[in-house]
């Protein structure tokens, strides 16, 4: 479903590439994690996959569609992204209804009304949220709307950039369960970026650990839980996660 080979991203004025020769594959219906500290390049990989960055080298294939490295082409019914901060990713002056109708209008889809009703049902929110503005919602509700918006075009792949790190632990549990249920029901493929190893182990079957723009190792969730890691850096990361958890 996702195939990335030798992906290298350079930003102007930086000698070192932000992402260097990154390769991984994610099968259909799988959830794959990208783990690392701030600045390791994990979000840059996600943005390249989403088509938000051009000028990279290598190969990106999403559900059989090859992404062009120089021409932006949205693949709206293939891939959608959910951002870290639900406070920054919803237009403050648009009602929830408008937020959800916009992608339907842009892509000239039919059954607009029905799609909005279903989208809200999917994320466990009642229809009365339609008339509300983002500031009238809690953080967890906003993130549900962001997920509803991402799913309204029925993509096959969701790119999740720290989708719960701005939320309380108690709210995180609800959003995580929602994402898990949607993946099973809709047969979605997830690529999840996070620095939270327990969360990665809970949501993903496999993950890749990134450091300074490179993937240093690939692990299964079971390896992660058992501490069966090859790299010293990963071991230190695991130890830090246990201390600060």
């Amino acid at each position, binding site marked *: 479903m996702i195939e990335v080979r030798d992906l290298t991203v350079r930003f102007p004025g930086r000698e070192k590439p932000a992402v260097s020769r990154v390769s991984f594959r994610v099968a259909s219906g799988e959830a794959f994690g990208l783990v690392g500290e701030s600045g390791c390049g994990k979000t840059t990989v996600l943005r390249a996959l989403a088509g938000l960055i051009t000028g990279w080298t290598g190969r990106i294939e999403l559900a059989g569609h090859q992404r062009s490295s120089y021409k932006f082409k949205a693949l709206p019914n293939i891939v959608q992204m959910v951002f870290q901060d639900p406070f920054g990713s919803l237009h403050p002056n648009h009602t929830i209804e408008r937020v959800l109708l916009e992608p339907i209008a842009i892509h000239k889809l039919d059954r607009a009304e029905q799609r909005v009703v279903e989208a809200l049902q999917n994320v466990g929110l009642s229809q009365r949220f339609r008339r509300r503005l983002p500031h009238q919602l809690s953080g967890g509700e906003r993130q549900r709307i962001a997920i509803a918006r991402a799913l309204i075009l029925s993509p096959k792949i969701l790119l999740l950039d720290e989708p719960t790190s701005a939320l*309380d*632990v108690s709210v995180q549990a609800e959003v995580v369960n929602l994402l898990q249920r949607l993946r099973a029901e809709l047969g979605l493929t997830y690529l999840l970026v996070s620095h939270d190893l327990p969360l990665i182990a*809970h949501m993903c079957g496999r993950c890749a650990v990134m450091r300074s723009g490179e993937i240093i190792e690939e692990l299964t969730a079971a390896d*992660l839980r058992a501490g069966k890691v090859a790299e010293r850096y990963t071991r230190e990361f695991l130890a830090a996660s*246990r201390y600060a958890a």
Partner: protein
Amino acid sequence: MTPLLRVEDLRVSFPGASGLIEAVRGVSFDLGREKLGLVGESGSGKSTIARALLRLVPKPGIVSARRLELDGIDLSRVSEAEMRSLRGRRISMILQDPRFSLNPVMSVGRQIMETRLAHFTDSAAHVRAQALAMLHSVGIRDPARVFNAYAHELSGGEGQRIMIAMMLMAEPGVLIADEPTSALDVTLRGQVLSLLDDLAVKRGRGLLVISHDLGLVASFCDRILVLYAGRIVESLRADEIAEAQHPYTRALWAARPSLDKPVSVLPTVPRDPAWANS
């Protein structure tokens, strides 16, 4: 030994469209030379409690308490001018996100010196040397560079260390840390926590840690207060967390994914209006 901070029946309310909204409803606790955790969800009133202790509740908020004592000083009798001299000197707070808490147009070094100069009549040269030494002691590798840097030139971890350094310059006895690590990566969290731990344990300060993350508080603090809808629903020792009595505490504890205990579905946190009143 008298506690550093005594709080009895603290109440904070804000006028709303349909009468007063009570954000903090009768909170009592003592803080000694220890690490005390205050845990609650967004909107539970935990940050409002911290602001009330520093007398920084914004108008038109109304604060009342049967007792509010800092180091034996009755804070209800202290004038605004006296409060200003206590803030920073006796009780201080570090905030969640250093990017928003540091002055963007003033060098880090000057901000750190400012704390000291506001409370002591030391010479600027002396304070400058102190600030550099403080930066070193909070684990900044090249104090000279950071001293002259501005907030946007710092990493998140450096920013939080600087906040701590700034606070320590006036040697306050009581420190409040409001979500001190939630803007930081896991790897930096450990470093900032061990720095705070040093302060509480080695320097004998009272540390109040405010967080939504019960797991973090339980692994770091000595005692925990669990806040629900402006009220403390349970108070327990951190090492007793596995035997917590209150259903809310137990649910918070279980809601976090764990590396050691895999579950297929995360337990969610139930909310019962009755807890807010019992």
